[in-house]
């Protein structure tokens, strides 16, 4: 490990030279618990710090997978990326234009154009399609938004072409059906098609496959990656399962970001993150992912001190993982680590263990 690495903000990671599609700098999202007027006089309102100072760049035809336990802010960060969630601090830029400035109308790039190029696919296929509309009407909506001048005949033809493209033929038969007449896998493919018809630059897949059957998951992920080329879009893929994340990111040649309590604990190329995790939390996630290995003793004690996630309203001081981290020492309680680049590899981790000269090494082990 060489001398003090300069803190790597997400931007420099992956040393891509072309301009990123989306770049987030020091984004924070805090939710204030609603209070009555009288309550607000008496005590401080409870603030949930969902996302806390995250910087991330997403490039063209890129794949970024966000992994973490529930409540770590991965969905909130995802929604901030595609402009559905306004950050309380920091900026979100789409090809150099601040999205929320555009929304207020004082940028030359119109907000509608940005809005249309950032789409979403949801977790529950059943709830992502309006039960009262036929598939043909559901898929006509995006075309009407992007190509309002198009005739209904052309629209119909494109919808049929898309349905066939996502493997649902005969398209005419599927088009006339209601969502409840489709299986989970088919519904999810319609949702994917709807997002793709907007010709987006970035699609947020919010746990898009965890509601599907095991055998369908691989098929859906393959389809998404296949269409990435054709529709020239990048993916922000959210999952709480490391093996799905690994499959998607490695296939798409992208990165995996591990999130913990609103911060990026570690981010790096997919195979690096699986085979050689540097952050203790990534290692805990890796331990928790059951695999088909025949050995039993790997199922030993969980390599962490507390199984339940701390309360996001008042997160632990210093490095937020110190209350559960098996490697935690006094130093971790006091100061907060930045993202330090791992030497010569596309990987960065927010842990003092990455720095040789940090006083972490000589501070006593944490006993609780």
């Amino acid at each position, binding site marked *: 490990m060489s001398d003090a690495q300069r803190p790597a903000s997400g931007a420099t990671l992956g040393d891509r030279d072309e301009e990123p599609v989306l770049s987030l700098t020091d984004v924070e999202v805090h939710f204030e618990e609603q209070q009555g007027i009288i309550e607000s006089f008496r005590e401080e309102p409870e603030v949930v710090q969902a996302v806390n100072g995250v910087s991330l760049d997403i490039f063209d035809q890129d794949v970024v997978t966000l992994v973490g336990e529930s409540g770590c802010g991965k969905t909130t960060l995802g929604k901030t990326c*595609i402009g*559905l969630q306004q950050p309380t601090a920091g900026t979100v830029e789409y090809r150099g234009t601040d999205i929320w400035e555009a929304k207020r109308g004082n940028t030359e790039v119109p907000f*509608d154009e940005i*809005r*249309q190029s*950032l*789409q*979403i696919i*949801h*977790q*529950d296929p059943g*709830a*992502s*399609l*309006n*039960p*009262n*509309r036929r598939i043909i009407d559901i898929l006509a*909506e*995006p075309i009407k*938004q992007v*190509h309002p*001048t*198009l*005739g*209904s*005949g*052309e629209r*119909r*033809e*494109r919808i049929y*072409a898309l349905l*066939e*493209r996502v493997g649902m033929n005969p398209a005419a038969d599927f088009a006339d*059906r*209601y969502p*409840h*007449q*489709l*299986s989970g896998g088919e519904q999810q493919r319609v*949702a994917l098609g*709807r*997002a*793709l*018809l*907007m*010709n987006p630059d970035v699609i947020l897949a919010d746990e898009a496959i965890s509601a599907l059957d095991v055998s369908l998951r691989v098929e859906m992920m393959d389809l998404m990656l296949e269409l990435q080329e*054709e*529709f*020239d879009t990048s993916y922000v893929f959210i999952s709480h399962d490391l093996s799905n994340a690994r499959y998607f990111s490695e296939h798409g040649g992208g990165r995996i970001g591990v999130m913990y309590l609103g911060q990026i604990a570690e981010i790096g190329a997919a195979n690096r993150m699986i085979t050689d995790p540097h952050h203790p939390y990534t290692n805990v996630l890796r331990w928790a992912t059951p695999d088909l290995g025949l050995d039993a003793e790997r199922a030993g004690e969980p390599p962490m001190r507390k199984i339940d996630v701390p309360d996001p309203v008042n997160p632990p001081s210093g490095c937020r993982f110190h209350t559960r981290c098996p490697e935690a020492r006094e130093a971790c309680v006091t100061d907060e680590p930045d993202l330090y680049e791992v030497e010569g590899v596309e990987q960065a981790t927010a842990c003092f263990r990455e720095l040789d000269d940090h006083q972490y090494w000589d501070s006593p082990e944490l006993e609780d």
Partner: protein
Amino acid sequence: MDSTVGGVEWTSDDTSASEVSRSDKAREFYEEKIYKPAIVAWSDMRTRIGILLMSIYGLMAVVAIAGLWRAPTSSQAPERYMQPFQNWDYPLGSTASGVDIMALIIHSTDEMLLMILAGGVWATGLAVAVGTLAGYKGGTIDNVLMSFSDLVMAIPGLPLVIILAFTFNPENPIFVGIIININYWAGLGRSLRSQVLTIREESYVEASRTMGVSTPRILRKDVIPNLMPYITVNFVFAARYVVFASVGLFFLGVLPYTQANWGVTLQRAYSGGALFAPEAAHWLIAPMLAIGVLSLALILLGQGLDRVFNPRVRTRLAGESESTAADEEEDTFGGKVM
């Protein structure tokens, strides 16, 4: 750049394919909006009875408007207190002053139907507007609308209606219908708002928002269609309330009337001693039956109609293929009553 696949440029704007013919569109509209709902409505026994009963009232209204039955005038019947079903010219018999009861019933149906329609549309329309706006927009609009509806809900319906009727002396049935349901919309608006609050969080609404679909269009296409079952049940209840309240107010003599209607007949029978003279019993029963059967028809229609808006029922009955997903047939009447 244009990514072409199998000859389809996803990004180009030019329309090369043939237009969908007008007749196709008309046929599709007919099939979706008229034919299929009709099958679903007719399939349920309750709705079938409801439709039959309502068509009787519809017929009576047409007869009244077209003047095919004699207008009710006093001493038009050969004798007073004629018993029903004895003389076919006066099937329901006659009143103390020799008025043909059948004429009395028929000649108030058209006004009553108008009144119900006006009252129902006013109450449900306003409730939907208030409910969706407050529910979807939230923030100050929500607070303002909800505190206003709380105030309106705090006023007991009938006394306010009586005072307004006394002040404005409404003649036109539409105006009467609206006055009767003057504050009915508040309760309904509040429950619609809570439903909109849940629908607003649904993924497909968020997807529409992400696509940049305008709010009015989202309300029209995504939110309201999913509320329709609840709206139809409550439209019927609002109409039923108009029937009860209007007849009650006519009975009390609060509402002015141009021509005799059920409430007035009821009141005349009641004060004309029908309670004591058994031979006048039919004079009292006829308006009661008219009111009862109409509201029964409305209730049955209400139960059946919300099935029309349930896509699962529609596809199953229209013989389209069913997906493997279990189709739960829950009785929406129970949980949804206002």
